[in-house]
């Protein structure tokens, strides 16, 4: 089984629209939305949810004020400033380490499960899908990403699919690392802006750090052709294949509004470019 993860460093470069297009081209894949913070792939794929499981990330402290003797040991020991001087818990800051529970001399604090979100197993018109929802202001998105990826693997085995296409999150931190660990290939979607180029260099370093082969797609290359050329040169000098150069097209937004992938919605240059890019990616995944 092969795994491809679509990432970008910078947000908003077109990861999800491209992933949705791949989904409509590939009949033999499981789809996984690992951008659990702000998941959007379901807006195009319209999954029919078959199974929902609760996700408990880290635990959270529960303070029993009736037992509390105001010794302030928990306040002094918490490294996350999650308990204030009046011994109130600041939920958003608690990382669930359990130090407060341990130091409390009167057992006024217990660590309890925290309902952090849901993981879903679904069917879509393009095949099975694993996705999730992280509740507002919750921690542990990396852990939820791992749940989604395990669900996708189980789905692939069960449905005898040999490819998982992962829609990854922006950035380079915990959720990104959880999304790319152990995949066979990452596709980095970039655009010809100085910001995106800066972010491309950082995300390429991350893929190198974890020893994962990377290929690049320059989206909206015609917004600034000079910068697009710079990206191509940079990639050539670093032995990274640019597998696609896609034009800017408002069709992407129109397709989104119609809840369709670009491939379903139109057959213009952009769709052609994506089809050719997908053929190249598949070749790379087979080798």
């Amino acid at each position, binding site marked *: 089984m092969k795994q491809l993860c679509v990432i970008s460093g*910078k947000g908003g470069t077109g990861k999800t629209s491209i992933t949705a297009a791949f989904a409509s081209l590939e009949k033999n894949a499981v789809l996984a939305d690992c951008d659990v913070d702000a998941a959007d792939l379901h*807006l195009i794929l319209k999954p029919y949810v078959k199974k929902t499981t609760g996700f408990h990330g880290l635990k959270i402290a529960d303070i029993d004020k009736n037992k509390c003797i105001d010794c302030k040991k928990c306040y002094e020991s918490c490294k996350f400033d999650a308990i204030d001087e009046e011994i109130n818990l600041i939920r958003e800051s608690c990382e669930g380490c359990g130090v407060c529970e341990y130091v409390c001399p009167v057992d006024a604090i217990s660590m309890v499960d925290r309902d952090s979100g849901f993981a879903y197993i679904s069917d879509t018109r393009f095949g099975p899908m694993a996705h999730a929802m992280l509740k507002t202001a919750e921690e542990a998105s990396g852990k939820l990403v791992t749940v989604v990826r395990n669900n996708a693997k189980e789905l692939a085995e069960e449905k005898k699919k040999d490819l998982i296409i992962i829609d990854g999150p922006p950035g380079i931190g915990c959720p990104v690392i959880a999304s790319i660990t152990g995949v066979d290939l990452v596709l980095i979607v970039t655009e010809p802006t100085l*910001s995106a180029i800066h972010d491309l260099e950082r995300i390429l370093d991350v893929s190198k*750090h974890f020893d994962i082969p990377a290929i690049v797609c320059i989206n909206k290359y015609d917004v600034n052709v000079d*910068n697009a050329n710079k990206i191509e040169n940079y990639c050539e000098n670093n032995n990274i294949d640019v597998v696609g150069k896609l034009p800017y097209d408002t069709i992407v937004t129109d397709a989104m509004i119609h809840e369709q992938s670009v491939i379903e919605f139109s057959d213009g240059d952009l769709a052609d470019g994506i089809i050719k890019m997908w053929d190249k990616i598949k070749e790379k995944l087979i080798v």
Partner: protein
Amino acid sequence: MIISIASGKGGTGKTTVSTNLALSIGKAQFIDCDVEEPNANIFIKAKIKEREDVSVNIPKIDENKCDYCGKCSKFCAYNALAVVPSKILVFPELCHSCGGCGIVCPKDAVSWNKRVIGRIEYGPAKDINFYHGLLNVGEMQAVPVIKSLKKKVNKNMNVIVDVPPGTSCPVIESISGSDYCILVTEPTPFGLHDLKLAVEVVRHLYIPFGVIINREGIGDNRVEFYCKRENIPILLKIPERKKIANLYSKGIALVNESHEWHEMFGLVFNRIKEEVKT
């Protein structure tokens, strides 16, 4: 006054809004909290003068004192310690530096090593005091770098905070303490969906907020309808223009190109000032 600029969805124009707002105010402190992919300085162009490492405490086990009882590894909520026969393994990337292993160790075998996970940098650009943070490649935890950055906030100044995308821990850490939050979105289904998530976050934190719609002209009207229904003020609409996209691609701020934009961002700032006062 502290104004943070957030979005939920990435790439909607947070950095465009935050940098133009800061440049239109003139005298301000700018804090780029997107430590995973910081881009604001491409537009602010501050000359970096000072650098400070951000480090976290990682346990160091004194093997002479340790009797491999396993209490530390059992306590660790992050699986950052593992005890194998006559050896303790520490996985620094997983450690949250809670200090728990040191507290539970009966043999006092735990001391602390500093581990650098990123840095923060400072530099001036005219009257803007610019700060940003950089998480090192391969590191998981952005929050300690953001915390170090937020310590630089000078409450006596106008402070503009550029927030990373998403809705989880790094976002909360960046936004908290703000007097006002601007949510930047685009008029597309993805933009609307993620705007709703961002609205939940700011409401959860009880921070007053308004919306800026970027790339107006693409997509549909549903973002506007949503804002009307929810009584959320729309502070500004930035139209979809090739010229604007091109300036952005070259790292040029709008307010440096046209006086009109300078004025418009100035109006946004004044409006926020009024709203925060009341």
